[in-house]
């Protein structure tokens, strides 16, 4: 723990593990922060994991 750090934590909590929550978590974790990704459901993925294909490329959402 550096002296300039004081009481600052190096962790972030992200609430909601849909595509936005996952992207925020990955950016932070890949920038050397520790992430707690919390979701009320048993699975991450959110609404996007419930879509068939996505516009405008018609790629499979899953």
């Amino acid at each position, binding site marked *: 723990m550096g002296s300039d750090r004081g009481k600052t934590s190096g962790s972030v909590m992200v609430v909601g593990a849909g595509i936005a929550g996952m992207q925020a978590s990955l950016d932070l974790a890949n920038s050397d922060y520790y992430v*707690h990704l919390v979701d009320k*459901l*048993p699975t991450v993925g959110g609404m996007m994991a419930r879509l068939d294909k996505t516009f405008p490329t018609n790629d499979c959402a899953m």
Partner: protein
Amino acid sequence: MISPKLVEVGRHLNVNIITNSEIKSVEGEPGNFTVTLVNHPRYIDPVKCTGCGECAMHCPVTAVNSYNKGLDDRRATFIEYPQAVPLAFGIDTDTCIGCGLCENMCVAKAIRYDDTERESALTVGSIILAAGSQGYDPSKLDFLGYGKFANVVTSEEFERILSASGPYRGHLCRPLDREEPKKIAWLQCIGSRETNKCGNGYCSSVCCMYAVKEAMIAKEHAHGDLDCAIFNMDIRTFGKDYEKYYLRAKDKDGVRFIKSRVHTVVEIPETGDLTVRFVNEAGEILEETFSMVVLSVGLQVPETSKILAQQLGIELDKYSFVETDPFTPVSTSRKGVYTCGVFQGPKDIPGSITEASAAACAAGSDLAVARGTDTKVIEMPDQQDVTAETPRIGVFVCNCGINIGGVVNVPAVTEYAATLPFVAYTDQNLFTCSQDTQDKIKEKIIEHKLNRVVVASCSPKTHEQMFMETLEACGLNRYLFEMANIRNQNSWIHSKTPDIATQKAKDLVRMAVARSAMLKQLNEKVISVNKQALVIGGGVAGMNAALGLGKQGFQVALLEKDASLGGYSRMLHHTIEGGDIQKYLKDLIADVIAHDKIEVITGARVVDFSGYKGNFTTSVLVGPENKKRTIKHGIIIVATGAGEYTPKEYGFNQDPRVVTQVQLGDILEEKGAADLSSVVMIQCVGSRNEENENCSRICCQNAVKNALIIKKQNPEANVFVLYRDIRTYGLMEDFYKEARNLGVIFIRFEPENPPKVEPAAEGMMVTIKDHILQKNLEIRADLVTLSAGMVAEDTTELCGIMKFNRNPEGYFIEAHVKLRPVDMPGDGIFLCGTAHGPKLITEAIAQAQAAASRATTFLSKSEIKLSAITAQVDTEHCVKCLTCVRSCPFNVPVFNTEKQVIEIDEAICHGCGICAGVCPRQTIQLNYYEDDQILCKIDALLAGGM
């Protein structure tokens, strides 16, 4: 598309996934919050559960499958979908009868009937709320018949109907009789743009696009001619290239778009068909019968999110979206708490991903001093060199509970593997992926001096990385690993024929062993990262990107071609919400100039560029003296911006009474609206036409914004907006409604019948055909205001030097329109603001913060390890035909004219293998997938005698 992200968060060492949990309270200060979580019981231990699915297979209870929106069933013991992360089942205690069958069947001993609700605590510095949305429930709109007529479904249900993993396995069926529909109607704005019945006055921003998509996909799935009709008020395809998509659906795929209000949907009991009664633009009441009706439901903040906001003390707006400021789009009312995605406001996936990165930037900036203090690192032992050794292969065959073992004779496969060449050790495991098996594999590698490992189990997509790490953990090169998929590609599909499945497993193992013997150890090149950033463009986007990086502690060179900062925003006065742009800009410029990490270089022109991610070199000529400077940097953020289109239409530049919206903004700022008695605004000038097919996104709100200013300052003034579709998406719909309430008159026209503008005795005369009256209207105006679209800055010279790709309209092309909206195709290069496409200042700020976040993922590391899977050229046998140069989608192979050879830079090679495939002399090999390493598998297969 989402699967790789699921796997990445699931496997990331520094992402701790906490499912089945909610926030109870948040105490403390920004930088040091204490969070109390409520962890609801799952009744199956996610650590022990291997996802084999035996529990669900034996569960006798049928429950409604909420994943498929109630259109089919699942068991009480369930997993939402096969790709779920964590790959662990759970028990739905609402339906579980507690029979104990799953507990008896679970070989991993993961069932915990006595699981209870617990509380746990976390210490975090920042919080990001990405709680998302749910589809509007149309049950209470009784005139639509949802819940009453089986063939009226929501768009969310229709997504599942179309999906291959959905209730009908992707066959286009209607729920009532599982017949394929012949005619489908989509009804737009269900639960959006309506305050009387549902209370959601906002536009949900995504429904037009998904309805177009669903219609196109439904047509693809249909066996005959499927008639698709979309009933709408306005079609709002305002995103980047979305208009082209809409035109394709309309003109090429024949999807019908009907401007109307739907009155009722009534079922014809004999057939289950539905009669849609609607009012067309001319005011006539019409009826049309469809086999199925899809309700395009809007996005809505769920009750649970409202409670969450309350617990955190976060202010919400009247629709329960998080209250944010136009200039700080991801900051909530509580310091240290940020938001993104649909909880912030209705938006599509690229918008959500952009904002997510922006929130990550903001959350990380607050904690920059503590970066890396909580993260975990795995220390790997030094690698041993096994190049000279004879292959000693270890084969581990997985039972996957009884997923494989229940079909394939695993002991026989294991015995067979022992007879194969170079195999030094074999074993079988209950679950090869479990943590204790990893320890066992490590033990056996050391004990038997194994220098190659084969695992015969499931898919490398989900498990290869993990096994490779196990090899690395005992000093073995990760590329000396091979997998045989004897589950997904064997036991699951040949479950009725175990003998054949066992034989196939043997074949797959023989092939894997053959390849394993041919594998070479590969060294991943490590490159250093220069921690300086280069931002090109000193407008609002570029400045925010520079500040985002500066706050994270990185040195930034900010290039601006003009003599001063500010860009296009210098021409703008207020956002539609009333935010003072000039004040914001002044403060922003002051912050940027004062920041000790940011060096502003104005009057700069890029003249030379070279390098790759982590190590770029850019030369610029600066100032009137053209002083040359060379900057070394690790990443690039492109923020070159866009400007207002200069109209050629409607006598602009010929008559001073014809102005653009930006000019009208100036007039209103300087003189106000007191002396205006009649203003006509014409939309889509320079947009949605042959020259520029796309929508410019910002012009509708611009018109509404200026119309409101006029009406508020001078209620007597007449304001007419001549439009094609009003696209005040998201929360801006309220301003459109306000404008109508204040008496602004909106008149729709078709592109074939544009308005005519002519000078008249007093002012200008505008003639327009009114659809409702079916008559030409003549409107006198003091001012005709053209809602001119956006045009990308001319970046031809820059792109010639830096080799960036632009679309035909001159906007930069992102790496992936959906999932990587801020990344450019080249690694280490990012994009933000209107250089990416037309957008509002708020959206440009969010994307700029996002670009800073994406760049931070590079700059926070001192070095980057490159994948060893890259293409190598055998220059001795290469005939320099240049086929590879022409075929590479990333422009990596180049012909070095000095040395007269083809060169492939491993630092920028993506390892896709296209060059290796197309090389007519087979002089290009892709590491880990060399021709011999593939062909030996085929030889091994044929050696078994097919």
